[in-house]
C-alpha cells in the first residue's frame, strides 16, 4: 500500500471513529467515558491523513526522484475491515445470541443502599437481581419495580428471562445478568425484543444451566415492548 492509499485509509478510519463517537453508535461497543479519547484519536488520524497528502503533494512538486517510497506490509490492508464493519454494517450491541451462550454474571455487591421513592421504581436489572438474590428481597419488599432488558430463552418449555448485558471495559467482556419472568409473562414475543417490565419481588430462584449462577424471578404485572435504549449495556 503506498502513501496516498495509506492517507485515504487513515482519513476514512478517522472519520468513521469521529462519526461513531459523535453519534450514539459508539455506545454499542465501548463505555461512554471513552468518548473524549475516541474524538482525539479520530482527529489525530485525520490530521495524519492530511499531513500525508500535504507532504506527498509537496514532494511530488519538488520531484525528488529518490523519495523514500516505502511500502507498508500487506497487513495494513486489514484496517479496511473495521471500517466496513463500522460504516456499512454497524452491528447492534450484544444481544440474545451472546446472552444465551453465557452464564449469568451476577456477583454479590458490597451493600444495599436504601431505595429512593417512586412507583413504579426504575432500577437496573443488575440491582434487582443482586437485591433479590443476596438481600433475599428484603430491601425490595412488595414495591413495584420497573426494569428494562431484552428477552432471552429460558429453560426448555419454561418462562423466558429478561436479560441485560453488563460490561466493565468494552463489549468484548460483556456478560449477561438474567432475571426470570413469572406472572403476566408476555407470550409470542421473539427472543431479543426489548421490554420494560413492571413487577414485584418473588422468592422463586433457579440456577443458570450454563454456570450454575443464581437467576432470581420477578412477578410481572405489566410488560411493554420498546426500541433498543440509548445505553444498551448496564455498567
Amino acid at each position, binding site marked *: 500500500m503506498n502513501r496516498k492509499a495509506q492517507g485515504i485509509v487513515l482519513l476514512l478510519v478517522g472519520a468513521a471513529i469521529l462519526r461513531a463517537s459523535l453519534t450514539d453508535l*459508539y455506545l454499542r461497543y465501548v463505555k461512554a467515558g471513552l468518548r473524549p479519547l475516541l474524538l482525539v484519536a479520530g482527529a489525530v488520524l485525520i490530521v495524519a491523513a492530511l499531513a*500525508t497528502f500535504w507532504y506527498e503533494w509537496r514532494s511530488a512538486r519538488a520531484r525528488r526522484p529518490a523519495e523514500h517510497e*516505502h511500502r507498508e*506490509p500487506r497487513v495494513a490492508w486489514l484496517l479496511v475491515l473495521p471500517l466496513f*464493519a463500522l460504516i456499512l*454494517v454497524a452491528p447492534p450491541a450484544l444481544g440474545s445470541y451472546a446472552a444465551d451462550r453465557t452464564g449469568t454474571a451476577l456477583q454479590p455487591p458490597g451493600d444495599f443502599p436504601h431505595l429512593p421513592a417512586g412507583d413504579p421504581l426504575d432500577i437496573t436489572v443488575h440491582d434487582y437481581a443482586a437485591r433479590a438474590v443476596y438481600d433475599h428481597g428484603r430491601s425490595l419488599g412488595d414495591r413495584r419495580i420497573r426494569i428494562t432488558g431484552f428477552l432471552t430463552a429460558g429453560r426448555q418449555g419454561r418462562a423466558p428471562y429478561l436479560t441485560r448485558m453488563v460490561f466493565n*471495559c468494552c463489549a*468484548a467482556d460483556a456478560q449477561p445478568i438474567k432475571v426470570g419472568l413469572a406472572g403476566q409473562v408476555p407470550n409470542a414475543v421473539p427472543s431479543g425484543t426489548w421490554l420494560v417490565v413492571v413487577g414485584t419481588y418473588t422468592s422463586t430462584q433457579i440456577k443458570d444451566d450454563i454456570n450454575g449462577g443464581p437467576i432470581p424471578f420477578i412477578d410481572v404485572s405489566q410488560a411493554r415492548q420498546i426500541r433498543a435504549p440509548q445505553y444498551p449495556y448496564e455498567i
Partner: protein
Amino acid sequence: MSTTEAAPTPVDQRDAGGRQGWQIGSVEVLIMVLVLVVSLQAPIRRAAAAAPAVQSWMTVFIAVVTQALPFLVLGVLLSAVIAVFVPPALFTRALPKQPALAVPVAGVAGVVLPGCECASVPVAGALVRRGVTPAAALTFLLSAPAINPIVLTATAVAFPRNPEMVFARFGASLLVACAMGWLWLRLGRTDWMRTPARPSFEDQGKGAAFWGSVRHDVMHAGGFLVVGAMAAATLKAVVPAAWLYTVAGIPVVSILALAVLAVLLSICSEADAFVAASLSQFSLTARLAFLVVGPMIDLKLFAMQAGTFGRGFALRFAPATFTLAVLVAALVGAVLL
C-alpha cells in the same frame, strides 16, 4: 497465520523500476474495493442481520478495535515524539552503562507509560532505534503495559476484596520483565532481532518526520491490532462458555488454561483485570496468571512483535515469555494469594 507474510520490507528496498512518487496500483485497488463494498452494502447488511453469530462476531471485533485505538494512537504519538524530538543520546545517558543494571531500571521505568500493550510495542521499537540496549527495551516492552498506574488502578477496582492482587500483579510482572531482559543479555543474539524497519526521516523536516512516523506506525500496528481483534472475536463467538466451567475445577490445568486464554483473547491490559474478575470460577492464582501473561504475550502482541522485530525474534521470545510468566505467576500466587 496470515502474519507470516506481513513482515515489512526492509527500509531501503525501493521499487526496482525506479518508479517515481506513489505507485498508482494501490490507490486504484483501494478505490475499487471501496466502490465494490459500498455497492454491495444492502446484501451485506441483510446477510449479517440474518446470522446472529456473524453479528455477535462483528460487535466484539469492533469493540476490541475501538477500545484499543485511542491507546494505540497515544502510543504512536509518543513513539513519534521519541523518534523525532528526543535526542538519541538522552536514553543512552539516562540508563546505567551496565546492561545488567539497565534492565531493572527500564523495568521500573515502565510505570510512566500509561497505556496498554498496543502502545508499548511501537515505543519499544523507537527505543531500540534510538540505541537503547535491546535487553532494556524488551524489559520495558514487557513491564510497561502491566505495571503502569492506569492498569494497576483498574486491577484494584476489579478486585475490590482482594487488594493483594494488585501487589501480586505488580511484583510478578516486574519480575518476569527483568528476568526476560537478563535472559536476553545472556542468551540473546543480535541476528535474531531485526532492527525495527522504518523509513529514515532524518533528512526531512521535523514535521514531515513526525507525521511520517505516525502514519507508518498506525498502519503497521493497526493492521496487527485487526488480526488480534479478529482472533478474540472468533474465540468469543465460537468457543462454548460451558467448557470454561469444567476446566476451572482442576488446579494446575486451570492456571495453564487461563494463561492460554489470555494469549488467545488478546485483551488490552487496561481491560483484562475486569475480564479476570468475571472469571470467578477460577482460583486467584489462575487469574493472576491471566493478568501476568496477557499484557506480555498474546496473539495480537505476537503479530505486532513479529512485525516490529522480525518473525525469528518473535518465535523465540514469545514461548520463553509465556513459560516464565506462567511459572512466576504460579510462584507469586502461591506466596501472596
